[in-house]
């Protein structure tokens, strides 16, 4: 096996406590442990993170761009999910 066939891992970094992990990029590694170590060297050389996740790229299920309309459209006509939809008197506080 060569690095060409090592699986791809997606790297997520938590920049500091209180924040979510955010996708930083990807890398190749033979297994998850080495992926984690490589991720530390590649994506946190300047203390950019306090926690790292690595996820095998092939384990991620993503929505398809082909169905972006039909997939997200159901939310488009439900404006009543937003607070601005409602008519209330302007002089009511804390609303």
């Amino acid at each position, binding site marked *: 096996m060569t690095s060409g066939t090592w699986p791809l891992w*997606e790297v997520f970094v938590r920049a500091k406590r209180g924040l979510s992990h955010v996708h930083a*990029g990807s890398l190749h590694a*033979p*297994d998850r*442990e080495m992926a984690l170590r490589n991720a530390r060297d*590649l994506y946190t050389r300047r203390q950019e993170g306090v926690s790292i996740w690595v996820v095998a*790229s*092939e384990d991620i299920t*993503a929505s398809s761009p*082909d169905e972006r309309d039909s997939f997200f459209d159901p939310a488009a006509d439900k404006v009543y999910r937003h607070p601005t939809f409602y008519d209330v008197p302007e002089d009511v506080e804390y609303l």
Partner: protein
Amino acid sequence: MYGNDFGQPGATDSRAGAPPHPLNAAETPDYTDALAEYFDGLIEQDQRVEPRDAMPEAYRTTLIRQMAQHAHSEIIGMQPEANWITRAPSLRRKAILMAKVQDEAGHGLYLYSAAETLGVDRSELLDKLHSGRQKYSSIFNYPTLTWADAGAIGWLVDGAAIMNQVPLCRCSYGPYARAMIRVCKEESFHQRQGFEILWVLARGTKEQKAMAQDAANRWWWPALQMFGPPDTGEHASTGHTAQSMAWGIKRFSNDDLRQKFVDMTVPQAQKLGITLPDPDLAWNEERGHWDFGAIDWDEFWRVLKGDGPCNEQRIRTRVEAHDEGAWVREAADAYAAKQAARHEQGAVA
């Protein structure tokens, strides 16, 4: 080339076979009118194109070529400076230079990672570099003869790279733009440490001053060539610029970026007390820019095509590093296999 894309006469670069991949393959085979309209809309609204969006095949190949050549430039660019790590004049300088060279390796990996979102494999891009089918910035085909060259590279080469790379942070292709943001954050230390090296030498002994001047003399013109061929005239690029600008990959023309770089660098050279090796360098009141002399484009194409002082050495060193590093990859595989076996045993027990 270093964040730039221009055609080289006779260059070959075909679309890499794209294995379908759930996250990263660009799904472009059925590029219908409706999809074209969607893509054009994204570009028009200055939105980002993301990996699985439908995109014109030429957009995809242009990006793969540009990102690959950019990545190659980062990792080949490690060599001229690595040449001075063991001979850095102090432990401080040695630690700094190692960190910088390590950053360049990181930049290469960010870029290969971004290129892979378009469905190519990194190993395939490396093969193309090793076999000379893809290029890297011609700047790295010049030798680092003295310690001052480490300074001149940081100041001029990283300085020019920053000028090229900052607009790429707004590149229309999302993964490339995001990689560039990361890279640009790291580059400013590179440029400053280079300037500092020259700043110290320029205030040193007569010999040290001469060393700084000599390095600037040798790196100035190749640094100007880093922006690529002129936009017009007999040496003009073979024409990726207009299309790349229309696609929002490129934001400024080669000549505009070059002019910005000259305007930025001349006052810095004055501060250093270094004379830039161009008798035609003069402030142009009317234009509000520095005028500069003619660039030797014949030399540029010659070096790019392989006939520079270090082309052969750079590729040979790169291929040797890859081949002689095979045992590291094999050891990693063996370790992974051992861990997996242990894990399995533990699960059974």
